């Protein structure tokens, strides 16, 4: 297999991985199996980070609209 084709395969696989492992319809079946329980925790962590990011964006938007100088808080 030529180097170019091998590289194409690699990049395409990586692109597929990003979609097929992180996206699509995500359901909790009766049992959702992944490689190890650690993966489920990572899934939860990413959801948490997205939520925190969203909350922070909402906070900023609110702060801008009310034109107040909000104190820093976690």
């Amino acid at each position: 297999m030529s180097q170019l084709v091998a590289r194409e395969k690699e990049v395409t696989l990586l692109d597929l991985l990003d979609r097929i492992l992180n996206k699509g319809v995500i359901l909790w079946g009766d049992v959702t199996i992944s490689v190890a329980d650690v993966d489920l925790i990572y899934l939860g962590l990413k959801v948490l980070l997205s939520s925190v990011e969203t909350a922070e964006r909402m906070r900023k938007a609110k702060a801008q609209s009310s034109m107040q100088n909000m104190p820093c808080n976690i």
Partner: protein
Amino acid sequence: MIYLYAITDRPERPIPAEPGLEGAPLINLVCRDIAAVASHLTMVKVPPAEANLWRHEAVVEALMVDRTVLPARFGTVFTDEAAIQGTLAVHYAEFEADLKRVCGRVELGLRVLWDDNDNQPLDANHKKRLNGQRPAISGRAYLLSRLEEERQAQAQRQRAKALAKKLHTLLTQLATQSTWQVLVTPRLLLTAAYLVERERVTSFQRKVEALSTIFPELHFLCTGPWPPYSFVTAGIAMIPSEDMENARSQP
């Protein structure tokens, strides 16, 4: 155990001959106007080995030929058919809405690399400084240097966002929906996905080629057509994006 590949419309269509994982035949579980395509599984765990990933993808793409598809995340397994039927009933409205939204459309992926001058990950400098000076550095000096690094990082992030937005705005015109992220890694200026009508894929491709001529200092990668992994909202949706509203908006 039953392994789920996708939720589809047109439940009356015959199941494709494409084999599923472990070479198992596909089964079609119908709930009113939608279906779940799955196969029986003897494995207890489904390792994400290359062969299994491509098999899952092959099934989804075979389905995409003649029906609308919401691809399932890899590794979604149920105890039995009744469990899947239950899920179809519970999420019916969401699935129906998603199917309507992605009908006739495919996902195209885009990544753009840049070589910003101060592109070096800033923590690398920070680590080097720490390793050399840890005994001597004062707490105050440390935080002040971190402050300076954060300022530079923020400036770089502003530059990236402005440039990425320019590119994204030009491409999103060809799509009904899109998601985009800036600086997933320091070199990855833009990571984006576009939901595009099948007939517009070639135009999109040409647009990317054009952009690479206008911005020769950037590197473009465009892949697809993919099933609409990034545009599914049913179930637990995670679409981190610079513009969450855009990702959720109707065309």
